[in-house]
């Protein structure tokens, strides 16, 4: 991610060309400013995971897998299940990715995606407490980024959402104060489908779903996530450029509008899972 920015030689000519196109409302790949690249959503791709999804946006490709286990609740939320989101930009995903623990970009990625899921209350974490204060469901969502071509935030977010929405977890119940396996595999308590929309400012233009090439020349990035009820639930401005107040309000509006479109697409992608 940042490696991409640093390492791709930002050809000034290419940027000039890109800006010229954008000033006419066009992009290098023919899209309009507010068009996404094709999005594919494939679920149940990892049989050993309780939920999984492979999502591609253009050439960006991500797999999310969900493991559900029992765990101890956090002391400050004794009556809630655990949700842990991790992301790794694998070294096979780009010539600039390196093996090793997640760097600041991968940590930001995981945390922004986590916030979208958590703050939208996609999962009813209260229903995931078995013995409040003692024993709760622990939902681990791990993301392996396989190919990077821009907009990791949205690709990862959609993969996480699709994997969670199609998860069938090992059922437990409490009998006489003891946690017992039921043998059933209920779905997670899904309440809504959050959708993140990532926008880039390049010069004076705001575009959605930037490619790696566009990210290399963008001034600022903003990701806003909406829930299914018209609320914004997470936001993150990124990069060392600025946004005007008008840009922010435009981004808020755009994230809701595009969010509705993509929510439909995700709903179809997760199929029978009722959300």
């Amino acid at each position, binding site marked *: 991610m940042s490696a991409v920015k640093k390492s791709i030689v930002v050809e000034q000519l290419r940027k000039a060309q890109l800006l010229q196109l954008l000033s006419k409302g066009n992009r290098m790949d023919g899209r309009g400013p507010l068009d996404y690249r094709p999005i594919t959503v494939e679920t149940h791709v990892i049989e050993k995971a309780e939920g999984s999804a492979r999502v591609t946006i253009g050439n960006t490709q991500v797999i999310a897998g969900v493991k559900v286990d029992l765990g101890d609740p956090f*002391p*400050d939320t004794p009556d809630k299940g655990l949700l842990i989101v991790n992301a790794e930009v694998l070294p096979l995903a780009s010539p600039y990715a390196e093996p090793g623990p997640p760097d*600041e*970009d991968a*940590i*930001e990625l*995981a*945390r922004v995606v986590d*916030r979208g899921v*958590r*703050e*939208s*209350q996609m999962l009813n974490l209260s229903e995931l407490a078995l013995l409040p204060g003692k024993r709760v469901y622990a939902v681990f969502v791990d993301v392996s980024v396989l190919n990077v071509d821009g907009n990791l935030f949205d690709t990862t977010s959609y993969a996480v959402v699709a994997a969670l929405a199609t998860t069938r977890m090992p059922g437990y119940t409490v009998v006489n104060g003891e946690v017992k396996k039921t043998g059933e595999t209920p779905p997670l308590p899904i309440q809504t489908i959050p959708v993140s929309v990532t926008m880039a400012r390049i010069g004076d233009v705001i575009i959605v779903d930037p490619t790696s090439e566009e990210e290399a020349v963008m001034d600022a990035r*903003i990701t*806003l996530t909406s*829930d299914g009820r*018209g*609320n*914004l*639930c*997470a*936001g*993150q*401005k*990124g*990069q*060392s*450029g*600025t*946004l*005007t*107040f008008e*840009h*922010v*309000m435009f981004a*808020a*509006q755009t994230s*809701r509008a595009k969010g509705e479109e993509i929510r439909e697409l995700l709903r179809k992608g997760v199929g029978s899972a009722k959300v």
Partner: protein
Amino acid sequence: MGRLINESGLRVDGRRPDELRPIKVEIGVLKNADGSAYIELGKNKVVVAVYGPKEVHPRHMALPDRAVLRCRYHMSPFSTDTRKNPAPSRREIEISKVIREALEPSLMLSDYPRTAIHVYLEVLQSDGSSRVAGISAASVALADAGINMRDLVVGCSAGKVDGVVVLDLNDTEDKEGEADLPVSIMPNLNQVTLLQMDGMLSSEEFSKAFEMALTGCRKIYEVQRNALLTKYFGTSQPSQVEEE
């Protein structure tokens, strides 16, 4: 009417919805640093040191046309209710990144090619909105270090508690409220340099909270200015405003 807003519309610490906590900014508090500042915002206590421009290590990280900016936001183990492990958490790593990106637009980094500028923020006590308090202090410390700037950067948060849009969330409001929206701006250039959000805000609430955060920023900017004037020109304008 809920736990966080009482029947008089006042908040847990007695503030009105659009009221800042007491704020204090001091400059030049650390002798070794090239620039330094200290901020208290409510119970937040953040000290910031700037070192640089200085040599870049390792050298191959130097940029030929501008300075490298490095930021570290760190919490002392005793700064929180429960002891914090001193190793950097994922949260601290993310916040260090967004603070760097919030400060960078204000700095004339191309005036210092092949150097590094280090900004260290140490949260001695944390009480909600420590990142924006830290940004406000860091910008003043950068000015104290004599780094060429386009504008100061000033940060403030808004959010929602018990359904009410409020300014400058404290710890309780941050943890138990419905939404938090930290923002930083360059006040003279009218540019947003940091924006994060978590929680749930409708369109109208988002607009209102964003506006409120901008207004809060402008109030804190006055405190920054006064602190700098006092330090460098010895003016008598108070650098501490209980509530202006």
